[in-house]
């Protein structure tokens, strides 16, 4: 839930196993979580009276499509990334909050829809508070947890109980600080909803031995997307669950095949030199194959679910449509992976810009009418309790 839309997908180094709540294998999740910048709408047609003179009075609304355009530049972002990373290190992590805001602002500020950019306005000081809390908690856990095992158990319980709250807070914080044409996004916080999703339904997934996992991922998308709104326009996510199962089945087959193939190779190698136990060298092909399969599966899932999730997301009556081609995405990410590995991570920002640009180029917005009708919800909205709270409690745990 950090960075903007596809960047998560562009960090191919992560290989979290399937099944964790923050599973990167649910890249669509990423897409949607970070969706705040994207889902905003406007219709070119009607607002002829208000629109900039640049746009001539357009013909009445046929279902027009507007592509998302990404203006980011690899070199420019690399410069920003490297300077901010260096400053973060030189300040022993203190600058991290500012670096994060700048990087995120760069990605959102370069994302254009219907002639206007998104903006990210988070106050770095609030992120700093969040960072300090995290550091204190982790240090305390590390020190006391080792000496007093009880602390470990209690901390674990607290962390689990807090998880939905943390997720919801982060979403609200990021939504609140993302704007489009002067309007803020908003995330309807619901701790109970989060708890039901992350405890109740996840328990079902475990009981079903993971069979229900793709369905749970869909629920998760629904929970995240469905609670977002821009002004008085609400996001909705209604998608059939079938493609989720198909995608995860494909990814699972891929990883499973690779694991079996790797195991066979290892077994053959062990047999060849007559040892009873595999040594590390024998295991290398297994890990290589398995790691590669995880990577491909992750990117495959991203591409498949990106299309499915966005094509079933609406903002009131306005629609989205995504046409990311799996093969091209895999090719792009393979090059990214090689570049990142080859430069020991230095080309990470380069890969990020490429990923965002590519994904956004395959996402379009199809307004059903003038988006200028979208207004702030309620006069007092700006000071509504929810938004004030999310502003006050600026937390972003980089989930």
């Amino acid at each position, binding site marked *: 839930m950090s960075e903007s839309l596809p960047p998560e997908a562009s960090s191919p180094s992560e290989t979290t196993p399937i099944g964790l709540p923050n599973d990167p294998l649910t890249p669509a999740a990423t897409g949607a979580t970070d969706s705040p910048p994207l889902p905003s709408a406007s219709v070119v047609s009607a607002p002829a009276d208000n629109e900039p003179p640049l746009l001539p009075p357009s013909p009445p609304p046929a279902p027009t499509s507007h592509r998302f355009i990404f203006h980011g530049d690899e070199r420019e972002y690399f410069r920003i990334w490297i300077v901010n990373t260096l400053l973060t290190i030189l300040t022993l992590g203190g600058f991290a909050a500012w670096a994060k805001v700048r990087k995120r602002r*760069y990605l959102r500020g*370069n994302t254009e829809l219907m002639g206007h950019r998104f903006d990210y306005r988070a106050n770095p000081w609030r992120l700093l508070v969040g960072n300090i809390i995290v550091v204190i908690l982790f240090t305390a856990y590390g020190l006391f947890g080792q000496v007093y095992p009880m602390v470990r158990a209690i901390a674990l319980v607290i962390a689990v109980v807090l998880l939905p709250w943390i997720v919801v807070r982060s979403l609200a914080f990021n939504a609140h600080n993302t704007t489009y044409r002067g309007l803020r996004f908003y995330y309807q916080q619901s701790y109970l909803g989060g708890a039901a999703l992350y405890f109740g339904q996840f328990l079902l997934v475990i009981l079903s031995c993971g069979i229900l996992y793709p369905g749970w991922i869909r629920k998760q998308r629904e929970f995240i997307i469905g609670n977002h709104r821009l002004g008085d326009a609400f996001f909705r996510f209604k998608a059939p669950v079938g493609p989720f199962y198909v995608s995860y089945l494909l990814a699972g087959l891929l990883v499973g095949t690779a694991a079996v193939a790797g195991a066979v190779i290892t077994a053959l190698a062990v047999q060849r030199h007559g040892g009873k136990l595999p040594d590390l060298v024998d295991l290398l092909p297994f890990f290589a194959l398995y790691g590669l399969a995880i990577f491909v599966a992750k990117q495959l899932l991203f591409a498949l679910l990106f299309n499915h999730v966005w094509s079933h997301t609406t903002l009131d009556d306005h629609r989205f449509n995504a046409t990311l081609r799996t093969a091209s995405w895999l090719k792009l990410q393979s090059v990214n992976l090689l570049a990142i590995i080859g430069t020991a991570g230095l080309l990470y920002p380069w890969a990020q810009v490429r990923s965002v640009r590519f994904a956004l180029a395959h996402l379009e917005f199809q307004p059903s009418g003038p988006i200028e009708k979208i207004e702030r919800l309620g006069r007092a909205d700006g000071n509504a309790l929810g938004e004030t709270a999310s502003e006050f409690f600026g937390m972003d745990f980089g989930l």
Partner: protein
Amino acid sequence: MNAQVTGYWFDGLKLTAHPATLECDGLRVRLTGIETSFETSLAHVSVSDRLGRTPRYLHFPGGGSFETLDNDGIDQLLGAERSDRISLLIHWLEARSRIAAIATLLLVAIVGASTYFGVPVLCRRAALAVPANIERSAGEAALGTLNQWLKPSDLDHTQRRRVLAQLTRLRNASHFATAPRLEYRRLGTFPNAFAFPGGIIVMSNELVLLATDDEIAAVLAHEIAHWQLRHGLQSVFRSSAALLVVTTITGDLSTLTSFAGTIPLTLLQRGYSREFEQDADDYAVQLLKRAQIDTRALASILSKLEKSRPGSGADYSYLSTHPATSERIKRIDPTGTYRELLKPEEPASTEEAKDSPSTDSKPPNPDSQSTKVESLNLVTDADEPPSPLSQTPPTYPLWERVKGNAGTVTLEFVVMKDGTVHNVVAVESTHQAFSDAAIAAVQQWKFRPGKKAGRPVNTRASITIPFTLSEK
């Protein structure tokens, strides 16, 4: 100055974008649009930081904002004093390729330097600060993992008592806060001993049977040194430090979760660095001296271990914790009493020879990637046998090299009239990979052809090529 900036005005109530222009006289800002026009004090307006070519925003009291892509225009209009100096500086840094290049170099240098200098120091401090009970539980976790691969020992009581007696000798000479705990295991192929955090010392059956009493004391002293200097914990910290650096840079906490899982494995796989071995040797020598045990016992057991190590390191080669034995022996025992044990073929060792201490014929350079070609045995009916002009040495197959496999290959081939080599076949080979490499190399060889009655003829020849490894 009648400068103005064009952009859009958003009222914060609707998504509608109103084209507008902005003017500023240094104190007041004037916004002019089709529907909205107003003037306000510059002090009430907040301006977003400049960042790349992203749009700039002016936020007005009441929730309205002005958006423009004209970054330079805004800076000119409002003057530099409006933005705070830090953000101006950061933008200045971000906008320059030369700064980016310098930052890249600095970043690489900092990460590199802290990995090579800072991290070891920090890790030593951290390792020494770990409380003893935690150290012990870390050691037990590691031993538990290792137990999956080790067989229990069937060493009899006499042998165990021998070891215990030596431990007592060392303990009488020096005081440790807690007593080391002895564990015996069977390793299968070659003798070894490990120390785990918390003072757990694992001796292999083979080692106990191989070593004299003094040598057992020497081994114990060395392993005690690893424990007392907390080398195992330092290794763990070192490998996790790398993870922390990555986490800091990418800002991704989720990788931290894998940290806990890596600890037992790291203990097993890391092996001690050369520097740890030297420290442990030095410490052991001191300990032995204090216990009035001949320090040469350490050198002698090292050379015994080296000799007993099988040519093929396939089994447990990753557990090998003792690199560069010859150097270590030289360090412990500069007089060289035991050095020749490493090379029984040449008892009267010369100074130059002492770095290649192994029993079979070796390439002169222990790190050389290729093998030395010897014994060209030519079967020929020619009057004048062919003589080699160029002999490309075969490449040592990486896979076998990593696994520590050695072997020999015997090839037969025909030296043609033109001096090229044809029909290379392996008649004898210990490993497929070796014969492939040997054939590939021999095919490139060039000969002065053999002659019969003064005329070049095809000649049949055979050669045996050894593949041997340096002692790594």
